[in-house]
């Protein structure tokens, strides 16, 4: 494999990582701070993609369409928190898993009723459709846009959590919920806001990934598993950890798929190497997770150390 191809694959890995980060950031916020296992996070991702496709039809401009989709998803997220999840915080995680799994079924069936069972059409707008030459090959502009949006969200979250009053409350709520409540902070409203923020982040991931991936019922479940791997590797509740974990998972997955069959072919017969390489590559991120957990059981950058 020559150097240019290696650079291209590195860029692909980083881009996949940034896309995963968008998804994982909201998940880790909700899981780490509210201690809520939210399996329905993937549903908000799906909602973001579907709503973007729908609002594109209404306003016919990509950015306003995304903004509208984000707003609606945040509102839906807030509503879900108030009506369904609020009463589950004190309970065992199993109740939360059951309830949010129910939400997955609800959203899947609901969108199927509204949009039909077949995948729907969502393409990037014309100004994001071309390619630019990068490392000796044309690189899709939409993927550069995903990288830019992902990095911008990371910066925004860093600022929000580290340098604003809301962020201070979020950090305090994560450390000692009762003390924050005793100091007169409306923790219920705070959690509602965080949940809505998490839903909006998932919707942003869906809106950005939608033009690249298939927009279909159940699209959230595939990426949800990856997002959980990311936050476990990074350290639950830590935005920085989610960022590092996402980039690692993106790179390991991409390198594995791009190179393992060729590497194995040096020792094995070609057909065996192709099949074995594919199998091992699909395990690579889980092996990475196992290794991280073996040496750092709380993840690479745990939230409360």
């Amino acid at each position, binding site marked *: 494999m*020559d150097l240019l*191809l290696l650079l*291209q*694959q590195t860029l*692909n*890995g980083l*881009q*996949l990582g940034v*896309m995963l980060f968008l998804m994982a950031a909201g998940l880790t916020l909700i899981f780490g701070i509210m201690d809520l296992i939210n399996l329905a996070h993937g549903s908000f991702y799906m909602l973001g993609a579907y709503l973007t496709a729908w609002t594109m039809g209404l306003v016919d401009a990509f950015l306003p369409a995304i903004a509208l989709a984000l707003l609606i998803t945040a509102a839906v997220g807030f509503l879900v928190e108030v009506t369904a999840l609020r009463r589950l915080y004190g309970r065992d995680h199993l109740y939360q898993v059951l309830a949010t799994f129910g939400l997955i*079924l609800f959203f*899947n*069936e609901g969108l199927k009723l509204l949009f*039909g*069972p*077949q*995948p*729907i*059409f*969502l*393409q*990037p707008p014309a100004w994001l*459709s*071309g*390619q630019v030459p990068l490392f000796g*090959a*044309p*690189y*899709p502009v*939409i*993927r550069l846009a995903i990288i830019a949006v992902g990095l911008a969200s990371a910066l925004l979250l860093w600022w929000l959590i580290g340098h604003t009053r809301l962020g201070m409350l979020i950090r305090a709520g994560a450390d000692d919920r009762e003390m924050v409540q005793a100091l007169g902070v409306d923790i219920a409203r705070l959690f509602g806001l965080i949940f809505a923020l998490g839903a909006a982040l998932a919707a942003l991931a869906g809106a950005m*990934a939608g*033009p*690249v*991936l*298939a*927009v*279909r*019922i*159940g*699209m959230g*479940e*595939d*990426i949800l598993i990856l997002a959980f791997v990311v936050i476990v590797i990074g350290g639950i509740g830590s935005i920085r950890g989610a960022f590092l974990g996402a980039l690692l998972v993106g790179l390991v997955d*991409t390198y594995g*798929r*791009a190179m393992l*069959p060729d590497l194995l072919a040096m020792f094995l017969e*070609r*057909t065996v190497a*192709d*099949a074995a390489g*594919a*199998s091992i*590559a*699909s395990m690579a991120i889980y092996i990475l997770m196992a290794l991280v957990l073996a040496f750092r059981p709380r993840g690479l950058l745990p939230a409360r150390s």
Partner: protein
Amino acid sequence: MRNALSAIVAAAAVAIGSAAPTPATAQQELRIGLLTTLSGPGSGLGTDIRDGFRLGLEHLGGRLGGVPTVVIEADDARKPDVAVQKTDEMISRDGIFLMTGQVWSNLTLAMMPTLARNRVFFISPNAGPSALAGKQCNPWFFNTAWQNDNNHEATGAFVQKQGYKSVYLLAPNYPAGHDAIAGFKRYYEGEIKGEVYTPLGQLDYAAEIANLRAAAPEAVFFFYPGGMGISFIKQYAQAGLIEEIPLFGPAFSFSQDILRAVGEAAVGAYNGAQWSPDLDNELNKKFVAAFRETYGRLPSLYAAQGYDTALVIDAAVRNAGADWSDKATFRKALESVVLETTRGAFRFNVNHFPIQDFYVRRVVKLDDGTITNRVVEKIFEDHADAYVGECRMR
């Protein structure tokens, strides 16, 4: 309160009573299990099969072979363990006479032992793994669609005929993926520049597309059904490769559910298939028009297969006559089905897989903006699969 309670108990008793099969009702009605993927990834395929089958049953007046037919539908969520569990349920609780609906080869292979052990017929409207066509061919298994390799063979023969000197091959890493590549290579003799297997349900193909570009083949053959196909075609077009290296695939990679979601990116691509919405026969015209009217979308080949499956079962029950519920009689009747279907002439080979014609289709954009497939040529006539010789039906 007491009245309400006893009403519920009575209703429950009726419900249980009607669900429990007795020998008498088994004679009077045909109970069919339709287990397919209705939620999550791949649900577009399962829904099309289900809708096609429903339409077929409706066109036959709710009676297959004149026998009142009850269809028990269930969702397998594309998970083998769920499929096996629901199969058990449908056999023991619902008392099904035959099973159909299945989309996926890995689920089909997982369900087969349970069905064969319980002497329940399995008529697959889609999955046709090579194992069940060859050495492990099974008296309880029939396929009304194709053997997995067939549509890939058709594409391979076409790419060979077009004179492309090298190809790059991609498929998911599961039984049907390996069948796909084997099928393509059986009829393509040029250079293979790469053979890539990706995990089932993979989202992003940037890594594979970068490697593919570096390998510089003359053509690309890919087998990605459902969401995988949508992601791959979108990303291939976004990488600017569609004008440089043409895409070829089986019908599954360019079926109607995919075309709706990728738009113009797929226009011009050639794909091998046993069916096309424009195949010129009366039954097909009726099917396409009725499907469009009933469900508000164009049918895919999966929908046509679901419809044809209802026709095949109908013909088998009719062949068998009054004694249809005798399993040996029904098997003989099914084996000897010769029928005009939406795809034209249909009959079973000795391994219970179809013998039929195959076509090459091209993705086109119609004047009204619809993107769909049109037949270009017939590539195989009365084509049988490559594994039938290994089958010793016991």
